[in-house]
């Protein structure tokens, strides 16, 4: 059976940097065939130099990627996408500025061919707090942030560092379950937006880990309770933005763990690949020592209540 198609919903208000992020990911797709769904073809949803061909409803992008507009029917567009040959490796859905990304993710999750998508919400460091107070947009802004598994704080180069820190703290406070990362011009590794690839282990040194981000691979000892381990990874102190990998329990059953922010997913799977986890986070926040301890603990007694 074809594995479910992974997807990422990208939310945030107009001007928060959704398009910039999408273009950055397209440039660093690392051979992945990405399909980008946009609400409409606005003023250049895709950087011009990436476009190979353009028709009414489809833009062909360098590297076998495509961009389609879904207008008022996202479900139909998604179903069309997974019928394409070759099938895209990952779908990025750029939601409209006022859409609730969580609602979009829930709808995508209803389509059989898709895995439940992760939700990435852009927050403009300069304006997000003002916007959260806006008469018309305040509650929409907050609801979008609440929907996020991962918040990317954009335009950090336009304000002073203390302000960046203050907004980061406010974002973490607004949605304690989301991982918050700061990035100017959408410059985050594609793996932060898409999740680590399916080919494990990845070589962290080829993953465009720019100076800010680290992607570390850990060997994992068999554990008593894989689900507790997955939840432990969501502890904000560890600085893990995304994690993905395989672990075994004491009986030898193999599990796939995928985390983004505080969202954890655990699935029993077959196969023989080694027990390894990839953890991605800000270089200055990723606590590799603590992670190494966590994964090597002979009996990962669950720190219950972490989730």
């Amino acid at each position, binding site marked *: 059976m074809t594995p479910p198609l992974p997807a990422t919903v990208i939310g945030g*208000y*107009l*001007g928060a940097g959704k398009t910039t992020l999408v273009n950055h990911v397209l440039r660093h797709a690392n051979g992945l065939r990405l399909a980008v769904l946009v*609400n*409409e*073809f*606005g*003023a250049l949803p895709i950087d011009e130099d990436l476009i190979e061909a353009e028709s009414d409803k489809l833009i062909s992008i360098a590297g076998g990627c495509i961009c389609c*507009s*879904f*207008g*008022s*029917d*996202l*479900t*139909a567009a998604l179903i069309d996408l997974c019928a394409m040959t070759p099938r895209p490796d990952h779908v990025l859905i750029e939601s*409209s*500025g*006022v859409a*609730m990304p969580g*609602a*979009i993710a*829930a*709808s995508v*999750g*209803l*389509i*059989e061919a898709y895995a*439940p998508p992760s939700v990435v919400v852009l927050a403009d460091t300069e304006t997000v707090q003002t916007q959260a107070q806006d*008469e*018309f*947009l305040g*509650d*929409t802004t907050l609801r979008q942030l609440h929907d996020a598994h991962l918040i990317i704080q954009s335009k950090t180069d336009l304000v002073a560092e203390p302000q960046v820190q203050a907004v980061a703290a406010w974002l973490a406070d607004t949605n304690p379950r989301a991982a918050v990362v700061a990035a100017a011009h959408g410059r985050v590794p594609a793996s932060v937006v898409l999740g680590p690839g399916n080919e494990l282990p990845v070589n962290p040194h080829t993953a465009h880990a720019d100076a800010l981000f680290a992607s570390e691979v850990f060997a994992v000892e068999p554990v008593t309770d894989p689900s507790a381990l997955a939840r432990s990874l969501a502890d904000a102190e560890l600085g893990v933005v995304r994690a993905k990998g395989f672990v075994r329990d004491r009986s030898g059953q193999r599990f796939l763990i995928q985390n983004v922010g505080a969202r954890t997913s655990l699935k029993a799977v077959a196969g023989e690949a080694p027990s390894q986890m990839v953890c991605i986070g800000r270089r200055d926040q990723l606590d590799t020592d603590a992670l190494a301890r966590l994964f090597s603990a002979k009996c990962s007694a669950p720190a219950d209540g972490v989730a």
Partner: protein
Amino acid sequence: MPVLHLQRLRKRLVSSTAMQVALPIARQCCFNRGLSHVAQNAMTNTTVYVAKKILTMNPSRPEATHVAVRDGRVLAAGDFSEVSAWGDHTLDSRFADKVLMPGFVEGHAHTMEGSLWAKVYCGWFDRGDPDGRVWPGLKSIDAVVARLSEAADALDNPTAPVSGWQLDPIYLDNVRVNRADLDRVSTERPVGVLHASGHILNVNSKALELAGLLKPGVEHPGIPLGDDGLPTGELKGPDAMTPVGPHVGFARSLLDADEDGVRNFAKLCVRTGTTTITDLASRMEPDTVEMMLRVTAEDDFPICLVPLRFFMGLSPEDLIKEVASLKSRSTERLRMGRIKVVADGSIQGFSARLRWPGYHNGAENGLWYIAPDQLGEILQRALAAGLQVHTHTNGDQATQLLLEKFASALQTAPHPDHRFTIQHCQLADAAQFRQAAKLGMCVNLFANHHFYWGDEHYALTVGPDRALRMNACRTALDSGVPLAIHSDAPVTPLGPLFTAWAAVNRITSSGRVQGEGERISVTEALHAITLGAAYTLHMDGEVGSIEVGKRADFAVLESDPTACSPGELKDIGVWGTVQGGRVFAAADL
């Protein structure tokens, strides 16, 4: 009959003078030989209809007994001597015992009303279909199941879907319909019933199975699960509905006109006296446009259709470009070139955007369907391009946003006669109507809503204070805002006289008068369903009243709406219509 005789003489005199004055004498005999032919032409060219009464809506001649029609237009309206002064004519007395009004103009409906009649009507109220059959309202779930089963039995293909529409559990003690109920219709074929609100779809097990959702672990706020961990078959909101909709005959494209749907829609118009009508949110796909151009051009197509291009799917810049190009392709009976924007959701679906104090039952505020900045950009570009925008706002916060965005767009791109229209505008308060007046905006209020959901709004959604002011027709008129009123068919049935009745009486389905102070007079309501609606479409120079030069569009009524008690307005019989001088009897459809 000396008078008549004299009239006839004078007519002949006029006609021969007009026809012959320029002809050389030498050709008189030839002309005489052909006279009968010419005279016949002249006579078929002008038809004088005599009616019991003609309510013209033209203040300089409010009532008449005769109307002369030539080339599809009104040549004259007055008494016989006045209209016959134009010369030879055929006197047509088929309306001698009827009352004529200007053909009604419905400024907010959807051709989907026509398309839905291909499915099974499951509503609580009696409703007439395009062929004139009145389907009795269904008063229980058992009755709904029985009617769907009957439709299923009539199908040859054992796996073809059965789809119903207009289910309204509000009237069935808010009973929750589940898949077991619809499994009684069939376990082999997918079955789906769309609610009257358009926001909930009930499906059977087979439909869930086809969509891959008959499994445990479905996580979606719009998909409740039963005790068995499986979806109950209730799908709430467009997000939950879309994966299953296509399996039960409710594809998203239902919003777009299909050929049968357009024909059915036109029949409903004839039955309700409507001659000009909008299709208020069409995606205007190229095939749809070609189909509409072809069908509306047919000699016996009885309405002027005004489709508005739905804003989604194009950037503001491309939207303006496309709509301008559509405008240039407009014909006599297909008027394109307007834009429909949707700002928020619906009040009964709790998706409308409300100002403080929000929903009466404490529900979270609704949803924006357009980003405020994008709304501002569309308004401004449309003003600059001279294209009209109609914007849906239900909640008062959505109305406020529109007013503010429009005020600033208008400063940037001034337009002296834009007539941008606020559609629904259900919760607007007096200050908002005053602001709309200052900005030169029109409103098209959802008068039918009082009747169908007024009790619900009073008790649940917005509470008494705001329920009393909903669809404030009186305030709109007193504030100087040009007013139209509408059905939003298929949300409520098409029927301008019913809509007028609703605005005049403000009676809810439980029989209460809700918001007495917002009632308007019969004359004002009749204006709203004719000239008022025409004004919001920039078509008031062309339709909306019976006066010289305007299109010969009439609603042919069995009795006089100004002579009955206001409570009987909705019960006035409609014989049919005249559209562009062509007569359409409802009985002959």
